[in-house]
């Protein structure tokens, strides 16, 4: 356990010393300030309408737009923060003095995973928590199921983290980054094929989209999260977040298993690899 926490500590230190954490914090705060400014301006004009129903739906729509960006940023951050952590230390030989200590290789991997996961949780907490709090203080509005929704967003980041460590044990940093972005691209387009297929009642397209979701179920989990946090009215308004088909809770279970299995495969590949 001590070995794992030491590596976790090291991962934090790296983010701190390399100013990654500071940059993420400052840019995150800038994003929040920008979002809240826009939200305030729009909510002021909404106050002229008396219909609380429309107002809530619009608050929800704005919040979902913000969360969609947070979801995207979180995925990108999960990729960029983790893409070099294993492959970089292998190619620079830094890993050699670490794994020749009385430490199991899987402990090194778990320590890194935990360190990065905690940082991503904090980042998600900062951005989405800041948005929720800001909106709540301004209007008293909170979306439905905020905790479940945010947990699902975190699940997306963990999926990319595990896949990144898995690819990092085999590929170079550049290849790993490319693979992750392409996987995300496939998941993204698969999700839209599913949506549009549902809209035009093409079963084949819908099935293709669902199958694509199994390759990397990030977008599927996002749509589930968005579905949970939307008001019934907002769900029916035309927007990028209204859904033709909503992934079931089975997809969430699949995603959790996906995180665990990808991590276990990463641990196995790392243990066997010549360093």
């Amino acid at each position, binding site marked *: 356990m001590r070995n794992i926490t030491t590596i976790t500590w*090291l991962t934090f230190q790296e983010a701190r010393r390399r100013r990654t954490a500071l940059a993420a914090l400052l840019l995150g705060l800038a994003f929040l300030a920008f979002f809240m400014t826009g939200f305030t301006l729009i909510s002021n004009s909404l106050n002229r309408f008396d219909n609380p129903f429309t107002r809530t739906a619009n608050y929800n729509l704005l919040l979902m737009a913000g969360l969609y960006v947070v979801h995207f940023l979180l995925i990108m951050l999960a990729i960029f923060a983790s893409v070099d952590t294993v492959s970089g230390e292998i190619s620079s*030989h830094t890993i*050699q003095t670490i794994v*020749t*200590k*009385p*430490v*199991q290789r899987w402990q090194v991997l778990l320590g890194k995973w935990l360190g990065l996961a905690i940082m991503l949780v904090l980042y998600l907490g900062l951005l989405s928590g800041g948005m929720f709090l800001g909106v709540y203080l301004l209007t008293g509005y909170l979306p439905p199921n905020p905790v479940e929704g945010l947990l699902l967003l975190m699940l997306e980041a963990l999926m990319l983290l595990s896949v990144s460590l898995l690819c990092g044990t085999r590929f170079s940093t550049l290849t790993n980054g490319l693979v992750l972005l392409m996987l995300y691209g496939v998941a993204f387009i698969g999700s839209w094929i599913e949506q549009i297929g549902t809209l035009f009642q093409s079963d084949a397209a819908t099935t293709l989209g669902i199958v694509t979701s199994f390759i990397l179920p990030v977008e599927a989990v996002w749509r589930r999260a968005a579905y949970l946090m939307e008001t019934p009215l907002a769900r029916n308004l035309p927007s990028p977040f209204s859904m033709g088909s909503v992934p079931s809770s089975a997809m969430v279970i699949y995603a959790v298993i996906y995180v665990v299995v990808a991590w276990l495969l990463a641990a196995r590949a790392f243990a066997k690899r*010549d*360093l």
Partner: protein
Amino acid sequence: MPDLVIDTTGLRKIYGSKVAVADLTLQVPKGEVFGFLGPNGAGKSTSVKMLLGLVAPTSGVARVLGQAPGHTPTMGRLGFLPEHFRFHEWLQAAEFLDLHGRLLGMDRVSRRHRIPELLDQVGLTDQARRPLAGFSKGMLQRVGLAQALLNNPELVFLDEPTSALDPFGRRLVRRIIRDLAARGTTVFLNSHLLGEVEATCDRVAFIKAGRVLRTLGLHDLEMGLLHVELRVNALTPELTSALQSLGLAFRVLEDGPSNAPRTSIAQSSAPAGSAQPLVRSNGSAAAVAEADGPTATLELTLTDEQLLPVIAERALASGARLYALTPRRLSLEQLFLDVVGTEDSGQ
């Protein structure tokens, strides 16, 4: 059977179609400073990596401190300075050592005690709070060496430990190795710098193309022949006969202003204490033009150090002007070329 710290049989590593290590069979007893010598690309580093569990052998058996390589608890009894000493450069030197102390399972108190001690030993006390990013290669190698010694290991692997060091650093590494040997630590020194090996090792193995060609104890050889370099103004017939009267074998390394290249000598053909003079230069050693200044350099082979003052006396008595009389240990370089072969693989 002595207590073996390293014991391998037929260790082999193949990368794709390339044989990195063909057959590594060696035994290193406890407390020995063992030199692992070979040309570049001979498989030295791969061998060390197999012994540390960094690389899985294709076949063969290895025991390190009685366990399979990479056995987790046993790794706490080892030290390792890798050939590529790259570390987390955003850590300060003391933090870097603290991290590795933590990974070794050392408690806070012993880390606090041990880290300044080691920084002092490698001459980096003033750099303790500087990030490694600003370190020179030599400083990185020093801090890497400190890292390898944190846990007072029973067995230390040093892979080319002086590759980035200046003469001060090299002397320091030599002193550290001697200190380790005095404490009974086994040292596995991977090097192609023969001087380092010659100065520190008890025994060496010559490796080429992933195979141990020969293992030999350096102390045995020290007790054997002693090479002495003699520099005089000229190799006169009087000097030649004076040396011959002592029953000394010698060869001319340099004679006259033409700077003739070194001639090679076969070790085995120089019998110890031989009464036969052994002259291996082109032409007669006596037929040399006299000149001013040190123009003649001879290499004498003798068996007894006590002959050194006698040689000086006889040389002076013969009328020669003596510029240098330098005893040299066994020429490991010559031995290396003899065993490994003179062909440069270019790797």
